């Protein structure tokens, strides 16, 4: 009975293999692995590696043409499950091969960089295999290109991929690092832009921490990290007294005021507020009666005043527009004035009052200009009204004359009419 079952299944297997062999020659030629490792097969079939013509044997060794268990013997170079520690080497076998990678336009420095990352250091210096290796971020079998929306490292998926480990309290407790970065990032201006608005200009984790070389930036490296995008701010910051304090490691550069993972879109409040959950305003370090704090108040008030004059100018423009005036020129002028404020925001990082106020004054003068230009139009409109009100009165006067005339010439009695008499 038992042997019969075995025979039947062998025949069935052979038949299946034959049919499959005809339909998928690649598989028949190269792999007997998938016969048992179904799950891995399914994953692998969707990967970029499969698309580029790789097979199980390329990573795991062994003999795919051998239909017996001996296909997985040491003699046939079978590697089995790859040790976590060996994964980077294995991947690097191809991914550091210039000749091979050139044709795909891929980088070749991933492994070299990885070894210097925090992940790599812990792995190789301490032998601690809890850190991330290639497969933790890219998956093992269904590896996809980063451009593929299903990939774990697709730009919008990276933060969740990092969070898989970095939000895991159990995993992180040994290293003494926080686990709320992702939650904070999600709510931050960067996170909202990237995750909700799908704006790739906003950074994900690797944009600040590096990709394969992931490390936390040191205190005095923060400005170069933020400054990659916010370079005017960085430049002006370097001119400020804060830069010296940072060099003495008293403050943590950008992050001291703006926070790090939970960074919010800054408002003018930042000039006067105190310590906050993320970052801190001027009041966080400077006492409210200090000269420095008052500088903050001054800048804030200057900016608020400018905003107010913008609002007024917009209102003027809108009024004139509704009266049918062309206001394009004024709109452009107002935009230019507003641009001065956009320009001055980086400059506030220098906390140099003369420089800042020079810009704000120009902006306010621009808004005033606009108001005057529009006002001239509104005055013209009022003049028009006077002119035409006279006109209207002339019309009404004519009406009165006509009514008097009518009184004179109309027959006194309006005789009643017989029915249907209305033939003209």
């Amino acid at each position, binding site marked *: 009975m038992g042997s019969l079952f075995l025979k039947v299944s062998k025949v069935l297997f052979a038949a299946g293999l034959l049919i499959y062999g005809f339909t998928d020659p690649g598989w028949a030629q190269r792999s007997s692995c998938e016969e048992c490792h179904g799950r891995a097969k399914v994953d692998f079939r969707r990967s970029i590696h499969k698309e580029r013509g790789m097979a199980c044997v390329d990573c795991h060794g062994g003999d795919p043409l051998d239909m017996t268990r001996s296909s997985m013997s040491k003699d046939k170079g079978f590697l089995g499950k790859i040790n976590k520690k060996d994964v980077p080497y294995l991947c690097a076998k191809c991914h550091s091969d210039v000749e091979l990678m050139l044709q795909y336009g891929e980088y070749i420095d991933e492994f070299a960089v990885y070894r210097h990352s925090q992940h790599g250091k812990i792995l190789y210096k301490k032998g601690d295999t809890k850190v991330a290796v290639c497969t933790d971020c890219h998956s093992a079998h269904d590896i996809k290109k980063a451009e593929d929306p299903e990939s774990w490292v697709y730009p919008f998926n990276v933060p969740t991929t990092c969070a898989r480990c970095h939000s895991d309290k159990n995993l992180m407790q040994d290293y003494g690092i926080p686990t709320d970065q992702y939650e904070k990032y999600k709510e931050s201006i960067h996170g909202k832009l990237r995750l909700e608005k799908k704006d790739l200009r906003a950074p994900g984790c690797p944009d600040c921490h590096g990709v394969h070389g992931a490390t936390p930036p040191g205190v005095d490296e923060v400005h170069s990290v933020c400054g990659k995008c916010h370079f005017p701010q960085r430049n002006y910051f370097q001119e400020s007294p804060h830069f010296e304090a940072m060099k003495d490691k008293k403050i943590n550069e950008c992050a001291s005021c703006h926070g790090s993972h939970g960074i919010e879109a800054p408002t003018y409040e930042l000039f006067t507020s105190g310590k906050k959950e993320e970052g801190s305003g001027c009041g966080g370090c400077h006492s409210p009666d200090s000269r420095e704090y008052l500088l903050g108040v001054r800048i804030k008030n200057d900016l608020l005043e400018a905003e107010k004059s913008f609002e007024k100018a917009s209102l003027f423009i809108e009024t004139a527009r509704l009266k*049918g*005036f062309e206001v394009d020129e004024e709109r452009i002028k107002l935009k230019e004035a507003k641009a001065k404020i956009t320009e001055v925001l980086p400059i506030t990082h220098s906390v140099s009052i003369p420089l800042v106020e020079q810009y704000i004054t120009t902006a306010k003068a621009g808004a005033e200009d606009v108001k005057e230009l529009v006002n001239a139009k509104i005055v013209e409109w009022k003049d028009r009204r006077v002119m035409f009100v006279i006109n*209207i009165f002339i*019309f009404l006067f004519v009406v009165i004359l006509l*009514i008097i005339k*009518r009184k004179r*010439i109309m*027959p006194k009695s309006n*005789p009643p009419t*017989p029915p249907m008499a209305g033939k003209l």
Partner: protein
Amino acid sequence: MEGEKKYWQAVKENIRGWLSLEGARKNIEVRFGIDLSKLTDKIKSDLLNRPLPKNLIWIHYLGSVILLLFVIQVITGTALSFYYKPTPDEAHTSIKYIMNYVPYGWLIRSIHYWAANLMILSLLFHLARVYFMGAYKNPREFLWVSGVFNLGIIIAFGFTGYILPWDQISYWATTTLTSEIGDLPLIGKYIMLSIRGGEEVGSGTLTRFFVGHIMILPAALCSLILVHILVVARQGISPLWWKQKVTNPSHESQPRTFFPHASLDFAIIMFTLFALLMGLAVFFPTGLPDKANPLEIPAEIKPEWYLLFLYQFYRVLPVKILFIKRVVLFAIPFIIFIIVLFSVPFSDISEELHPLKRRLFTGLGTFALLFFLTFTLWGLFS
């Protein structure tokens, strides 16, 4: 020498002959074969000295008000056409130019805008007065039918004029409306394409709306109004229900005539209207919303006030009942309404004029009026 002098003398005489009133008159009479003195007599007796019907009251001037407003539209519209450029690129800019740089352009445009609105308003009043006074009854069925055509043409005027400034609001109102029409089964697509002049609301649409607005519709309306008024002149105005019973012909000794009596009344109305139009145009000039942007839908799309009731009615209809789409739910009562509107004088055949004695039609009219008012107000405040 002598001959030359004579020649110049003759030329002088000839020119003098043409220039003097008497001479010009003779020349015209000979050349066109008409007796001018007879013609002026005819004008005097048939038009100026024509006795007015005894039942003429102020409300009968509404029709002439529409006519006057139409004349104003033709004049201001022609003036606008000198500067207006009917292409999507230039339309908005050209209107801006009219408003800001053409001398009194803003005034002309605002008058055109306000006269259009007043025209529709007085048209609705005219229609209501004719309806509730039973003025369409035998023998005036034709007047009513031509009137309904007038109504359609004026609304078409408003609709085609509306998009000419090519601003956000009118662009999107037109786009939405035509795309809903496109949802009608079978013919919808073709109606939509023929209104739009292409798949999208674009330069094709603007061109045909402009041509419609300044050529086809004016020509059609001119001829229809001419017919409408000639028929009124021929048939006289209908009797008034409250004067039907009273007869006292003895008072006819001192009849009122077209000139000066009616002309005077009309002049009073005309100058009042001028003052009103001027006031509206100066104190509430037409603004100009931003240029149409096919990529950005404005927050709110509302049609002009006189189409608002239809829009609001459309909005409150369910999106679908069973497999019947909303457009169809809308189109069915709409078409029935048009048919009923045309058939009014043919189905209300009693001789009774008093509104309370023809309850069915007064009721229908009141219902239509209430419907219009309710849905217009509802649309305004939602």
